[in-house]
Structures are given as C-alpha cells and as structure tokens.
C-alpha cells in the first residue's frame, strides 16, 4: 500500500515537470525511480523508456510499466492516473481561460520564455539518457544515424528504432559493443 502512495506522489510530481514533453521530466524520473526508490535500474529505465517510444499513443506510457513493476495492475493504474491527472486538470482550466487571454500582453512572453527553457530541459534529458544508452562507438553510431535519418527524412520513427534493436542483437551475436 505504501508503494502505491509513493507511486502516486512520484508520478504526480513528475507530471508537473513535463514542460515541452515527457523528456523534460527524465532527469527527475531517473533520480526518483532509480536512485531514491530503487524501483528499476538505470538500464531497465532506459529499456522501458525506449519501448515506450515504440508503443502507440502518448510517448510516456512507460509510466504504466514502472507502476506495474512496483504494484502490478493497481500500480500501473495509480502511476497513470497520478501522471496525467494534475496536468490534465491544469490544461482543462487554463485551456478555457487561455482563449480569453488572447490579447493579454504577457501571453507571448510566457510562450517564448517557457519555450526556450523547455528545449533546455529536453536537452538535459537527452544528455542523461545518452550517458546510459551510449556505451560504445556502435551504440553512439546508431543514435547518430537515427538522428540524421529522422531529421532529414519523413520516415516513421518506429522503423529505424526497430532496426536499431535488430542491430543491437547483431552486435550481441558478433560479440561487439
């Protein structure tokens, strides 16, 4: 039962940090789930996070995975509700208000100002994720190639990510990393 409360506290807190997307919360996500509560190891977190990029729908459904690891189905439900309810309510109310604020002079300032901070948070998340995901020249090369491919073409990201997994298996077979 205490675990469920911890899940609720952790994920509702993380929820409020997701400015600019789920990646912005990644540094705190890692700190809390790996270092503080020891629910998952860093590699496990990376695995769930990456699988979550392959799943359809919003890209942070991996919070259900961590919830399930901690408290089975109830854990998954608690993690999901905690992660989506606080920001959901905020969006609902601010969304209704926002249209009335169309001429508010601070609105563009908030949009532009938070925008650059959001990019910074996503970058920080990517750096921390990279420290775990890139373990050698080959995994670094995979990341760079996928980046270039997605940046330069309109290919569905699911394909290169699945291929990355197959390359990972090939590397294991050839005993390289």
């Amino acid at each position, binding site marked *: 039962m205490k675990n469920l409360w911890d899940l609720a506290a952790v994920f509702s807190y993380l929820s409020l*940090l997701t400015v600019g997307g*789920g990646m912005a919360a990644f540094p705190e996500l890692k700190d809390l789930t790996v270092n503080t509560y020891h629910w998952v190891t860093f590699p496990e977190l990376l695995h769930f996070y*990456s699988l979550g990029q392959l799943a359809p729908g*919003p890209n942070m459904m*991996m919070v259900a995975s961590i919830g399930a690891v901690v408290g089975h189905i109830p854990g998954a439900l608690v993690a999901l509700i905690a992660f989506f309810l606080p920001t959901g309510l905020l969006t609902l109310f601010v969304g209704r208000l926002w249209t009335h604020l169309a001429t508010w*002079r601070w609105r563009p300032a908030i949009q532009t100002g938070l925008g650059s901070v959001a990019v*910074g948070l996503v970058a920080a998340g*990517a750096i921390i994720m990279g420290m775990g995901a890139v373990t050698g020249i080959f995994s670094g090369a995979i990341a760079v190639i996928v980046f270039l491919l*997605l940046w330069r073409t309109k290919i569905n990201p699911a394909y290169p990510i699945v291929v990355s*997994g197959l390359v990972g298996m090939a590397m294991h077979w050839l005993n390289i990393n």
Partner: protein
Amino acid sequence: MSEPETPPPPPSLGRLFWVFFVMGATSLGGGVVGYLRTGLVVRQKWLDDLSFVELLSISQTLPGLNATNMSILVGDRLRGGWGALVATLGMCLPGATLMTAAAFAYGVGGDDPWSKAFLHGIAAGALGLIVVVGVQLGSKVLKEFADYVFVIATAVAVAFLKVPVPYALLAAGAIAIWWHRPRDRTPKAGPKEDPK
C-alpha cells in the same frame, strides 16, 4: 444541401472516445500531433486548421504531453469536461495496456541476453529520436541569441550541475519570461534619440 456556414453538430461521447481510441492505437512511432491533425482536421472536420494550431500552442506551453493535452482541449471544446475525459482515455488506453503488458513480459524475459541486446539497441535509436524532437522544438521556439543562452544554461544546470528540474524550470523560466516581457510600443526612447 445544408448551409456551409452551419457548424456540424458535436459528436457523441461514444464517437469521441472511438476516434481518439483509434488514433491512440495507430499513432506508432511518436509524432502523435501529425495523426491528430489528420484525424481531427482532415477526416472528422471537427476543427479547422486555425483552431488546431491554437490548441496545439496551448498544449505546448502547458506542462503535460502534447498528445494528452490536445485530447483534453479538443474533447473539452467538443463535449465539455466529459468529452475531455473520454478523449484522453481513448488516447491512452491502447499504449497503456501495451506498456503494462510489456512490464510483465520484461519480468519474464528481461534477463535473456538477446532481449537485452535488442532493448539496448532501441535505447540508442530512441536517443536519436529524442534529439530530433529537441531540434524540431528548438527550431520553432528559438529566435534570438538570448534564447540559446537560456537553453544551454538550463541544460548544463540540470544535466551536469544536477540542479533539480523544478528549480531550473522556475529560475530559468522567470528570467526568460522577464527577458521577453511585453514592452511599450516605443521602447525606452531616450530624449536624445527622439526625432525633432
């Protein structure tokens, strides 16, 4: 036959749930925003492009994921609070079910070296995806030199100096918002520069 001016009647809650459920189940590989536009603007014609972009800019400014924030805003606009709820449930249900199942599968097969190798590979690939998302977000919002300074300061503070995200968010956010604060039409026109 019907006048083009009349807006279409709002969809039923069941229909709303179903349309978002289908998008939640088919939007593979991230990029949910693209699927949302196709579904809501092109196919269902529930929104025009202008309102779609407006709701998207709210979604991107507020905390929360774009996909769920958009579900809430669109659901609320079409059917009020209940609409927001069923749209979000529909959007999340398929992915949440899959990722819960993935956790149990991981518990069974996660120690297998082949699955580990596969997951290690997709982690590297997902990193490439994250960087693209960051670059695309940046190309939209970063306009002047100061914006890049805010990005680097935030990233360095969080990733290397281990500043907790909420502090970084509040401090850098306040400075950046202040930097972009609304100014008067004639910004501090000193008397010397004044024409005449």
